[in-house]
């Protein structure tokens, strides 16, 4: 029986949840080591040894230590090609290229405005920080442009990279969850027919529902 892999970080973190949903999709058993960011545990020397940027998540299995959630996801998918959701990172180079393309689009175009919005609208109030209205407006405008591109794409294709759910779709789950459920920005997604349909489908996957349960569970 394989040793469970280790993920460091709180499930509430978007980047941590990206890795958790990938592990669940691939049926890879894991243990979660909580890192209290409120107590600054992510900036302590022991943690910096495995994640020099002092961010979550970090990941370990019996062979390797990694950071950067998208690199971790790619590794998990590459290492477990026949487990769980098979086509998660493609079964041939051409499909993989398409998945990489939309994973990069998520990374370069969707992530920056959506994570700033999630921070401003959800985390800042929780941390009693003042919200920056100009920044919110600016990033909503950027996100809207990206969602317009997605609306077109998802009218041609069931999922971003093709007919199957892949890492490219998965990577969008964490930030969108916050925007739809906690930031009162559901309308951005649901007002677009294809994007709305896609969000319903991907967020209803049992793997993501399980992650959301972990996020909503009382702190340990």
């Amino acid at each position, binding site marked *: 029986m394989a040793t469970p892999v280790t993920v460091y970080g709180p499930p509430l973190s978007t980047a941590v949840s990206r890795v958790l949903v990938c592990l669940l999709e691939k049926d890879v058993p894991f243990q979660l080591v909580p890192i209290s960011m409120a107590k600054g545990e992510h900036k302590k020397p022991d943690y910096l040894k495995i994640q*020099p*940027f002092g961010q979550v998540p970090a990941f370990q299995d019996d*062979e*390797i230590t*990694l*950071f*950067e*959630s*998208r*690199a971790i996801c*790619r*590794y998990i998918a*590459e*290492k477990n090609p026949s487990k769980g959701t098979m086509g998660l990172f493609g079964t041939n*180079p*051409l499909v*993989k*290229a*398409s998945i*990489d*393309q939309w*994973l*990069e*689009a998520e*990374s*370069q*175009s969707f992530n*920056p405005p959506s994570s700033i919005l999630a921070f401003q609208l959800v985390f800042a109030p929780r941390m009693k920080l003042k919200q920056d209205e100009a920044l919110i407006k600016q990033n909503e405008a950027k996100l809207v442009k*990206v969602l317009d*591109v997605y609306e*077109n*794409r998802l009218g041609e294709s069931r999922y971003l990279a093709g007919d199957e759910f892949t890492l490219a779709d998965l990577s969008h789950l964490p930030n969108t969850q916050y925007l739809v459920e906690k930031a009162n920005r559901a309308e951005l997604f649901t007002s677009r027919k294809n994007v709305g349909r896609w969000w319903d489908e991907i967020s209803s996957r049992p793997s993501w529902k399980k992650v959301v349960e972990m996020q909503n569970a009382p702190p340990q």
Partner: protein
Amino acid sequence: MAIKLYGAPGSTATLRVRACLAEKDLDYEFVNVDMGAKEHKKPEFLSRNPFGQVPAFEDGDLKLFESRAITQYIAHAYADKGNDLIIKDVKKMAIQSVWMEVESQKYEPATSKLIWELCLKPMWGMPVDEAVAEENEKKLEDVLDIYESRLSESKYLGGDGFTLADLHHLPNLKYLMGTKVKKVFDARPHVSAWASEILSRPAWVKATATVA
């Protein structure tokens, strides 16, 4: 010609792909996209890149956008040509992948904002926002401190050899070395040595030969 690259000569993302094609010794047709005439926002180009950005890429029937997806495709599809840019071993490739993400998530945002302020705005007679430049210079310094540490343990960012993890940095590096921000690279000995080395690679010199 099977491989076509649609881009603009000064575009960092276009250069990223050109660097990769040069390292792999591949012939391709370069199709100029006239950004001054807003060609990149017109329907024909949008069918190649719906985000209206350069570059876009074609290899036979395969059409791609996003420079870092294109370079990864090239590196895998043409693994047996030119220089190795990816590693076969799954574990070693995972480490390379970490540093490719670092470039994407940490180096790119800070450096692209600096390039916008210090290189592009002046070119178009727009006023520089010193506060933004300062903020991003500080962010870049924090990132380069970690690079300094990494490069003191590892010859290249992704491992023992030059890979996409290093290559992806080249375009933004080229621009910043022509600005006052050069000093933050020079101030860190391992980073400085790494930067000089990768900037002097024959493939990079070739890829930038036709660019001002």
